[in-house]
C-alpha cells in the first residue's frame, strides 16, 4: 500500500486561501460557507486531515489526536485517531470497521483493542491506540462498503 500526502495546492482549505489572499470578500464567503461547508469540506481530504491512503476509489485520511504535538505518533503513549473516508462522490458511505497496529519484525501487535465511533460525514474516531515500542509499525484499517472489506495499511517509524 502506497501512501502520500496531498500536495499543498490541492489541500488548500478556504481558511488557507483567506490567509494567503487576505481578501475581505473571501473572509465573508468563507464564514458564510463555514457552517454548511464544514460537513463536506473534508472530501477530498485536506492537509489538516493527516496522512492519506488510497485503495481504488476509496480514500482514507487519518490524523492522531493528541494533547501536545499534533502530527507525530508518540512512543508508548495512548492516542486517538480521527479518520475521514472519501470516494469519487465526496464523502464515502463506507464504514470504518477495524483499526489496529502490528510490529511485523517482532511478530506482535498492540496491547489494547481500539474502539471506533462514527462521527457522521464519513468521519470516525479511533480510541485506545498505543504503540509501545520504538521501531517499525504497520497501522492497518479495514473499511466495509457494499458487502466488501477493503484493507488499507500504512507503515510508520516510531522513535
Amino acid at each position, binding site marked *: 500500500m502506497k501512501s502520500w500526502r496531498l500536495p499543498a495546492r490541492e489541500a488548500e482549505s478556504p481558511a488557507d486561501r483567506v490567509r494567503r489572499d487576505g481578501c475581505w470578500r473571501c473572509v465573508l464567503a468563507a464564514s458564510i460557507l463555514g457552517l454548511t461547508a464544514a460537513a463536506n469540506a473534508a472530501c477530498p481530504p485536506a492537509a489538516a486531515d493527516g496522512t492519506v491512503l488510497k485503495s481504488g476509489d476509496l480514500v482514507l485520511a487519518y490524523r492522531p489526536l493528541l494533547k501536545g504535538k499534533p502530527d507525530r505518533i508518540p512512543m*508508548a503513549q*495512548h492516542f486517538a485517531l480521527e479518520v475521514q473516508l472519501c470516494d469519487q462522490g465526496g464523502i464515502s458511505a463506507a464504514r470504518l470497521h477495524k483499526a489496529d497496529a502490528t510490529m511485523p519484525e517482532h*511478530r506482535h501487535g*498492540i496491547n489494547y483493542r481500539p474502539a471506533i465511533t462514527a462521527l457522521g460525514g464519513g468521519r470516525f474516531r479511533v480510541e*485506545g491506540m498505543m504503540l509501545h*515500542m*520504538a521501531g517499525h509499525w504497520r497501522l492497518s484499517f479495514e473499511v466495509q462498503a457494499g458487502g466488501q472489506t477493503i484493507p488499507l495499511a500504512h507503515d510508520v517509524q516510531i522513535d
Partner: protein
Amino acid sequence: MRLGLAALLAFAATTCAGADPPQFTAAELGRIAAHGPWPLPWTADPGNRVSGDAAAIRLGHALFFEPRLSANRRVACASCHDPARGFQDGRATARGLVAGTRNTPGLFNVRHQRWFGWDGAHDNLWSASLRPILDPREMGGKAARVARALRGKSALDCHYTAAFGKRPDAGDPELLVNVAKAIAAWQETLVSPATAFDEFRNALQRGDAEAAAAYPAAAQRGLGLFLGRGQCTTCHAGPLFSNGEFGDIGMPFFIAPDAVDPGRQGGIKRLLASPYNLLGAHNDDRMRDDPTRSNATGTKFLRAEHRNFGEFKVPTLRNLTLTAPYMHNGSIVTLREVVKHYSELDEDRLHADGERILKPLHLAEAEIDDLVAFLESLSPDAAPPAPIAPPAVPTCRER
C-alpha cells in the same frame, strides 16, 4: 537533535584521545536525548483529588511508617519499602504477615508509572497502596483498625480532616480509599535525583564536550551496547528506562513445583475485577470521558492476549544499585548476573509465539563490565537520596 556538527566533531575528537569510548551517530544521540530530561516535571494525578495537597502528603507520610494499620500492629509500608534501600527491602521476595512470592519494587519515581505491581494489577497509585493494607499476607488491615489508628493521634485526625473535609469514620465507605489516596499523595513526592548519565545526556544536548568527557569511558561503551546490539531501549525506553508495558525475558515463573505466577495474564484479570480501578467510582478525574485526556484510557481498551502469560512489567532501570535483588521474583542477585542473563539467554524459555526481539548477545567479559558500568551510572552515586520533607500544615499541631 540540538547538538551542532562542530560540537559533535569536537566531542569525537576529544573522546578519541581517551580510552576509546564510542562515537555516537546522530540517530544514537537522538535516542540518548530521549532518556531525559531528568527529573520529569511533576504533575498532579487527576485520579486523586488530594494529589499535591499538603495535609494529605503529611498524613500519607505518617501512615507509610505506621504499623498500627496492620493486623499484628507490626507491619508498615516501610517494613518492606525501606527508604534507606530506595524503598525496597533487599529480600528476594517480600515478607509481611506471611511470605510472599514477588520482589518488592522500589518506590522512587512511582508517580510516573502507568501500571503498578509486576503484573500491572493496578492502574493507579492509590489502589496499589490500598492492596497491601487489605492483603492478608501483607498487612491484613481493615477499616475499623485504620479509623482507630487515625483517631488515636490528634495530628493524623487533623490532617485527615483537613484533606478530606470530614473526620475519619470507620463506617465511611470512602475511608480506606481516602487513606490510600493520602499515602499515594506522599509517594508522588518520591523523586530520585539526576545521575551521572543525566549529566552526560545534558552535556551532549548542550554540545559541551568537556562535561560529556567526564562520564566514564566504560559507561559510554555500555551505553553504546544498550542502544545498539543489546536493543535494550526497545523495552527500557524513555526517561524512566521503561516503556511502562510488559515483556517476557525468559525468567522462570514457577513459584512452587505445582504453582506458577501467571504475570500479566493474572494482572489483567485482577485489574478488571477491582472496584478500585480507574473505570470505577473512586476515580476523581473530571476528564475521564474525554477520549484524548482520560486517565482511564489504558484500562478501558486493554486487550488480553495469550502471550500475557508469563509477562511481567518492564521495570525502570533507575536506582538499581539501591534495589537488588532483581526481577519479579528477586532471583538475580547482581547486575552482572542480569547482564549475563541477557548474554546467555535461553531462547527455548521465551514464548514460541512471542516477540522476536531478544537474542542471546554472547557478550565478551569486557562488554559485560561496560554494560554494568552503564547500568550503575543510572543510580545516584552517593547515599540513597532522602525523600523531601512533607510540607507543614499550620492548622494541625504535631505532637
